[in-house]
């Protein structure tokens, strides 16, 4: 029995190392005083200075932030509605519409939206098309989280509110919304992370001219690899790490709340 555990530990540890070594290397080389990602020369913050003086990059960061905030706001509103509609009203087509964009390969959503924007809407691709595209796949994630929260609750509270004479709006504002709030916030954070991270769908729905963060990173990787990429990667990782920790706190909050009730 002991022997099995040792083998298992060893195998699992190797996989954990496999998961983390690449990220550690990216972070370490972002402080390396050499243009090559090869040997350690000395500590420097040059790549970060370069990054913060790179106007294109700052503009890209600003654009990505605008997209992520708008898309996650839109997706949170629509996704919460979708979660409620699926759980309470059992609208037949909605689960398919909300979950199919998540289940298929991203490239298919990217391509069909590209065709739609150019052929039907005659839209100039840019921030607006990216925001719509990101909202389309984030709605499903918010709906899943909100629905899971609703499934864990006793529906009789809503009936009680109705019996006591509350209007639908009062029931929603005073009972439903406060109860599903942790799920709504978790969904919003998840949408933000998904949006700011997304490369494939952004790649198809982006226009020319407006720099977007993942696209900038892609271009840098394809054309000239410098440790500046490591620096932006490190900052990016820090941002997602913070978001994950917040989301995780909220999530365990949800679980604890459920245990109490």
């Amino acid at each position: 029995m002991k022997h099995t555990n040792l083998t298992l530990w060893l195998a699992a540890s190797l996989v954990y190392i496999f998961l983390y070594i690449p990220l550690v290397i990216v972070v370490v080389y972002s402080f390396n005083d050499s243009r090559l990602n090869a040997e350690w020369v000395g500590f420097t913050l040059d790549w970060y200075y370069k990054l913060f003086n790179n106007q294109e990059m700052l503009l890209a960061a600003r654009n990505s932030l605008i997209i992520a905030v708008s898309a996650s706001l839109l997706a949170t509103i629509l996704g919460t509605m979708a979660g409620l509609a699926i759980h309470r009203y059992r609208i037949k087509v909605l689960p398919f519409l909300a979950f199919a964009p998540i289940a298929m390969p991203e490239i298919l959503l990217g391509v069909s939206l590209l065709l739609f924007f150019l052929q039907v809407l005659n839209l100039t691709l840019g921030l607006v098309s990216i925001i719509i595209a990101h909202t389309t796949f984030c709605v499903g994630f918010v709906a899943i989280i909100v629905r899971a929260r609703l499934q864990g609750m006793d529906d009789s509270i809503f009936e009680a509110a109705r019996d006591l004479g509350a209007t639908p709006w009062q029931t929603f504002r005073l009972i439903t919304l406060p109860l599903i709030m942790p799920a709504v916030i978790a969904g919003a954070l998840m949408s933000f992370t998904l949006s700011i991270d997304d490369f494939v769908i952004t790649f198809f729905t982006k226009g020319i001219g407006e720099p977007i963060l993942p696209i900038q990173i892609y271009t840098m990787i394809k054309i000239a690899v410098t440790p500046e990429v490591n620096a932006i990667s490190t900052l990016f990782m820090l941002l997602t790490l913070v978001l994950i920790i917040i989301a995780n706190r909220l999530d365990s909050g949800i679980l604890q709340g459920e245990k109490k009730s």
Partner: protein
Amino acid sequence: MNKFRLTRWLISLPPTLFLLIFFAVPSLIMIVTSFRFPGEYGGLAPLTAPETTAAEGDSGLYGMTLEAYHFFFSDILYAEIFLKSFVVATTSTLICLIMAYPVAMLIAQSAKKYRNLMILLVVLPFASNFLIRIYAWMIILGPESAFSHFINSVLQAFGFEPVMMLFSPFAVLVGTVYVHLPFMILPLYTNLEKHDPVLLDAAQDLGANRWQRFWLVTWPQSLPGVFSGSALVFIPVLGMFAIPDILGGTGDILIGNLIKDQFLGTRDWPFGSTLSIMLMLAVLCVTGLFTLLARPRVPR
């Protein structure tokens, strides 16, 4: 009562409309596009005058044609790329499974208080940007890296030619496995965690050794987890284009790269749509197969 019906519509209509317009309609448009003629300068030929644009002399019906599908099936090259994508997806799914199993098993066997942390450690790297994780492997597999020097010095010691690891099918496989590994670990863990340890004790009492206990008790019970994890790896890998684009060489083209080129390179929209529909059909078949396989067999 009317007020409640109104609420129902107020809540259901906005998300339904949004998704109909921005998901269902674009999908239909993609299907229609696959039956149209390509324009002379990319994009699409106008619907009204197909005769002027159809190069092959086939004017089609109301500007609609099966040309793109005909083209797809006329050249063995496209079937080969589809086959190659399936091979890459199968291989990476299997490697993911082999790597994920011990991790999922260890987490499931650990004390409850450590489980959440161990899962968080699996999810954490997955939260950093997708491109960054691929870029990390560019550094590790690059010709100047310590890892490359080590591998090549070992190879030379045994009298082999040094190899270039980056821009190769090997690099594509490593990157693919790295990016998709958490998708396999999580469903597998969710399944393994539900197993009743009493069954293993019973098997041991009946004289089963470690391997027998694994293959006759744990493995069959874990099959639903194995299949749902496999679906979560297989499907995105089938349609990926960024990993072969960054880590692969010129020969490592998969379906996703082919589709990308039709839209952003040669701008042959009908053919790109045809390829997308073929990919969609492949995904539907695979999803159906995995859903069928993932159904729990052990009666509860």
